[in-house]
């Protein structure tokens, strides 16, 4: 008799404005689960994915969390794209002692939501905002020498938490942004925000938002005939930014943990397999970062379950905090990625800068391109 499958919940927005991240993440997760199952599964048991679409809505996320725990009885959860949804849903898994592996959401506080509890069941393998914001500032201020910068952030949890991180990072360099502007999801006119930044003499625009509205920023710049560099969070790599901004989006730079280039055999196999299985438009992954991190999250989890020899939440959590064997992923090779006090697998030295060029994201810096074959390890 075949052993019961191991149920893993997959939660993300598969529809809506963030769906290019959600769907890519899901596809990465599917790919990893399929590979593991083909090679015999974990402890002789197959992985079964339970996928749910949270539509980027906090209340859907909460419903799904309860369904995962009470009805589906999943042993662990991977996913969460939207910081707000993650923060709203994690409480339930924390109480039920089920590990959550955030593979995309970047809000800095996600892994620290339960710092006060004795045990923390929330992990992450994504570059959080306290890594990204200083990187953005480093690129704009130190490397490219802009002293006057404007911040444009959306009015969601994601945008506003990111704005705080950006302001903090700027302050560390002794710089106050010349303009700090807000916009709402679905805004179609960015004239006021851009004019204010332009009038304040901004030499670069730092962004924290998601694809569609970021594209409106680029389009608004084209309209005003004002061309300054856009540097922002990793979401500038979203397909719906690149496609909707068109030539106006060229040159936008953002931190990336993964760029769709076959720089190592492992990455080449992943990209080839992904393109072959899901056939994305123009062979371009909609969100390579989400796909790669989604893919890695399943391998991390599988390694932890194998080490725990058991599917009980506390055991998996203990194994994650003390992974004995390194896990070779496509973002990095995870050697002791987590510890009791550190639930973030990605450190500041791992992401590199990507740049939008001709409808794709490429390495922004030549030296990163050259050294891309060497896997950057957690420090």
């Amino acid at each position: 008799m075949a052993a019961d499958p191991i149920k893993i919940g997959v939660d993300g927005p598969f529809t809506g404005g963030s769906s290019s991240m959600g769907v890519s993440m899901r596809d990465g997760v599917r790919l990893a689960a399929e590979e593991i199952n083909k090679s015999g599964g974990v402890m002789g048991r197959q992985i079964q994915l339970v996928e749910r679409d949270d539509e980027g809505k906090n209340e859907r996320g909460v419903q799904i969390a309860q369904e995962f725990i009470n009805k589906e009885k999943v042993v662990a959860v991977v996913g969460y794209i939207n910081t707000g949804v993650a923060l709203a849903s994690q409480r339930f898994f924390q109480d039920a002692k089920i590990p959550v592996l955030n593979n995309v959401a970047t809000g800095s506080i996600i892994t620290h939501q339960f710092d006060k509890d004795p045990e923390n069941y929330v992990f992450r393998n994504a570059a959080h905002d306290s890594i990204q914001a200083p990187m953005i500032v480093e690129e704009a201020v130190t490397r490219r020498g802009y002293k006057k910068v404007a911040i444009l952030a959306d009015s969601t949890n994601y945008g506003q938490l990111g704005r705080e991180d950006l302001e903090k990072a700027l302050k560390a360099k002794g710089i106050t942004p010349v303009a700090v502007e807000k916009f709402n999801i679905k805004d179609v006119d960015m004239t006021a925000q851009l004019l204010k930044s332009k009038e304040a003499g901004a030499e670069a625009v730092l962004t924290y938002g998601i694809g569609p509205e970021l594209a409106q920023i680029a389009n608004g710049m084209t309209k005003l005939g004002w061309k300054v560099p856009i540097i922002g969070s990793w979401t500038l790599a979203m397909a719906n930014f690149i496609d909707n901004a068109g030539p106006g989006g060229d040159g936008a730079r953002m931190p990336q943990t993964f760029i769709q280039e076959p720089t190592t055999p492992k990455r080449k196999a992943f990209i080839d397999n992904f393109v072959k299985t899901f056939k994305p438009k123009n062979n371009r992954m909609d969100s390579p970062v989400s796909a790669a991190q989604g893919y890695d999250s399943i391998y991390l989890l599988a390694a932890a379950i194998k080490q725990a020899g058991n599917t009980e939440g506390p055991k998996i959590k203990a194994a994650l905090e003390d992974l004995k064997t390194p896990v070779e992923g496509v973002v990095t090779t995870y050697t002791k990625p987590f510890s009791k006090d550190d639930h973030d697998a990605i450190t500041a030295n791992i992401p590199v800068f990507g740049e939008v060029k001709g409808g794709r994201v490429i390495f922004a810096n030549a030296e990163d391109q050259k050294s891309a074959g060497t896997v950057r390890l957690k420090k």
Partner: protein
Amino acid sequence: MQILTQLIFSGIALGMIYAVIAFGYQLTFATSDTLNFGQGDALMLGALVGLTLVGLGVNYWLMIPIVCLFGAVQGAVVERIGVRPAIKIKSEFGWIMSTIALGIIFKNVAENVWGRDDLKFPSPLPESPLKFLNANVLPMEILVVGGALLMMLAVEFFNRKTIYGKAVVATFNDRDAAKLMGINTGLVITFSYALSSMTAAFAGVLIAPLTLTGATMGAVLGLKAFAVAIIGGLTSGMGIVVGGIILGIAETTTGFYLSTGYKDVPGLVLLLIVLAVRPAGLFGKTAIKKV
């Protein structure tokens, strides 16, 4: 000065986007005292059908009449299954729920057909801005303003000068009397719904190159347009244009001079003031309703 000109130009373009959608609210209100709360979704369907046609290789200008025809059919369907039963049983509010419900259904259908991602609508005009009074204007924005005005003028002309239009006006003034005079008021109301969805579909393809196109594009725009219809007055085409421009300019100037975080506030405050002081809207006619 240059900044103010730029803000006003952008505000006018934005306001006209709201106004073309709001115009559709006014059309059905004029004949049947009912509104199509799915107006934003009619706009979205028009834009997405237009996008598909353009994707199939149909020329932008040729695509417009096809989309208008589609919009007309869609509007007639909404009236037949959503509004007519409510009017027949003299339900005061049934049409509200049914038009909202149909709007949700259309949105869900669109999500299944076109997905929920925002798509780019290729612009038929050059995307580089023109200089005008020292401010930048996109050729597409001029097309939106011009197209919207032309459309409203065409409908106004129809209502005032043609015999069919007179039937519409008569139905608006007194539905029962018009019926006694031999006007097929049911048909007139269906027609007004078809016309209103047609204008929405037309508005959709007109504004789509400026906004992004997607199943959820109607929600925010439809709501803003509703505010415009209330501010301007639901009985006045002129009021719709003025209301739209007021809201558009209010948004861009507040965003610049006050704070971009409060961009949406003055428009809605204005809405409340208008409702408190002149409930029929700035240009609306107040009619005494006998009960």
